[in-house]
């Protein structure tokens, strides 16, 4: 049995896209209330890990336990209903839906989600643009919307896939503030990042991923001491 404070426990996870084997035994834990990152170069399997945890990758094997429940064989709608919510790398804003419809799309899965008014307090811009077509928003606004719409569902754990990718520094900073605020409010967050400078400002611990495996774990407080090692891993 996993320790009681571990919310998500991934063990020896393998995943395939068609013929290609993309995850080779990913193993990591996400403790409740922490912000945990998966760091690594492009194409090492970070996004595939998230998509496997959400059940979007059909061919997956090993063990993924959420709150003690084994989800490896569940369809993704059932997994979501356990309390996980996903913000994909490409943001997944629907062009045939208005901003408001995008916001209200993810169904409430549990009581205790953030009330809509509070979501709009965090993201006032989304209320102003509620009637626009979802994809007419700027890149930064679309990213905000993609995060905002999963806060009201009652999910306790958020999977954020590269929320800062391609955004201006000032917006990246704003997203950093939001992630810290969400952590304060008790959300558990699994974050995929390539930008470890950003990751260092929000996370409690970092897993380094290479070739579809976790090769190291670095607590955030030890990050500076391990900077050389990390730079070698990431090839920067």
């Amino acid at each position, binding site marked *: 049995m996993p320790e009681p404070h571990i919310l998500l426990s991934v063990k020896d996870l393998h995943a395939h896209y068609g013929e290609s084997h993309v995850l080779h035994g990913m193993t990591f834990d996400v403790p409740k209330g922490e912000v945990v990152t998966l760091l690594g170069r492009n194409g090492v399997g970070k996004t595939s890990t998230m998509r496997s945890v959400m059940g979007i990758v059909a061919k997956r094997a090993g063990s993924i336990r959420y709150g003690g429940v084994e989800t490896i064989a569940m369809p993704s*709608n059932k997994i979501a209903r356990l309390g996980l919510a996903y913000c994909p790398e490409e943001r997944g804003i629907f062009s045939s839906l208005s901003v408001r419809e995008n916001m209200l799309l993810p169904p409430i899965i549990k009581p205790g989600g953030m009330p809509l008014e509070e979501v709009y307090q965090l993201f006032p811009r989304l209320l102003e643009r509620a009637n626009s077509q979802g994809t007419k928003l700027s890149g930064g606004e679309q990213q905000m919307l993609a995060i905002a719409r999963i806060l009201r569902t009652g999910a306790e754990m958020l999977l954020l896939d590269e929320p800062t990718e391609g955004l201006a520094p000032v917006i990246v900073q704003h997203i950093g503030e939001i992630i810290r605020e969400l952590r304060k409010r008790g959300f558990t967050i699994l974050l995929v990042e390539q930008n470890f400078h950003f990751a260092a400002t929000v996370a409690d611990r970092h897993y380094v991923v290479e070739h579809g495996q976790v090769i190291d774990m670095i607590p955030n407080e030890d990050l500076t001491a391990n900077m050389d090692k990390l730079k070698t891993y990431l090839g920067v």
Partner: protein
Amino acid sequence: MMTILGIPVQALFGQLLLGLINGAFYAMLSLGLALIFGLLNIVNFSHGALYMMGAFVAWLLLNFLGMGYWTALIVTPVVVAIFGMIVERTMLRRLYKLDHLYGLLLTFGLALIIEGAFRQLYGISGMPYAVPKELQGGWNLGFMFLPIYRGWVVVASLVLCLGSWLLIEKTKLGSYLRAATENPSLVQAFGINVPMMVTLTYGFGVALAAIAGVLAAPIYSVNPLMGSNLIIVVFAVVVIGGMGSILGAVITGFMLGLVEGLTKVFYPEAASTVIFVVMAIVLMIKPAGLFGKRS
């Protein structure tokens, strides 16, 4: 007698009414096709056969269970939709990830089997289905005679099409449907049972075809080939309107019915080809269709 451009007014409006009725059927069928293509990625060639099944089920309900027109209008779409949903669950579901061609082949095969079965059982001469007594007779509008039943078909079709459009564009359920048409795996990852939604959507599209079949029974008589006569034109309508566009399918359906009717008045020889001429022209100018988005 009054004439317009040398055509008697009576004949002109008579043909326009016929066109409007044909358009009503084109609209109901192409709406279902567009809905199914959007979400399931399936070009449902069995749509005509399911429309024919609708007419036959109504006829069977009347002749074997004594169920009248109004009851049939409710029961038939349910029965045919259940048949459709079984087909979706057992066969279509396996094809979503493959090329469109496979879905087209399977549904074309299904259409042949369904039609063949009814032809084997009932021949091709066609069975009469009486106009319900509440809708018999007609009104003299001065410029033309309007059979009540035909007016009812046009109104019923408009209400169904408008209702479906409102359901899809203005409701929460519709927003799930539109979102799942764009990105089904993300919608499912939000906790929505997309495979169930797909089955129900197919059932809904099939139910529309079946209702169209019941509405058609008193007009065209019940014939195993009634679907295959219609389906080619309906596909042209979907292509002209733009694959997957709901509103496009409805507007184009009615519009082309009228175009066909007008052609019958002014140049009857071209009446059966005019739609395909329109299709060729639209495809040259707007390959994605009048209401389609570029893919």
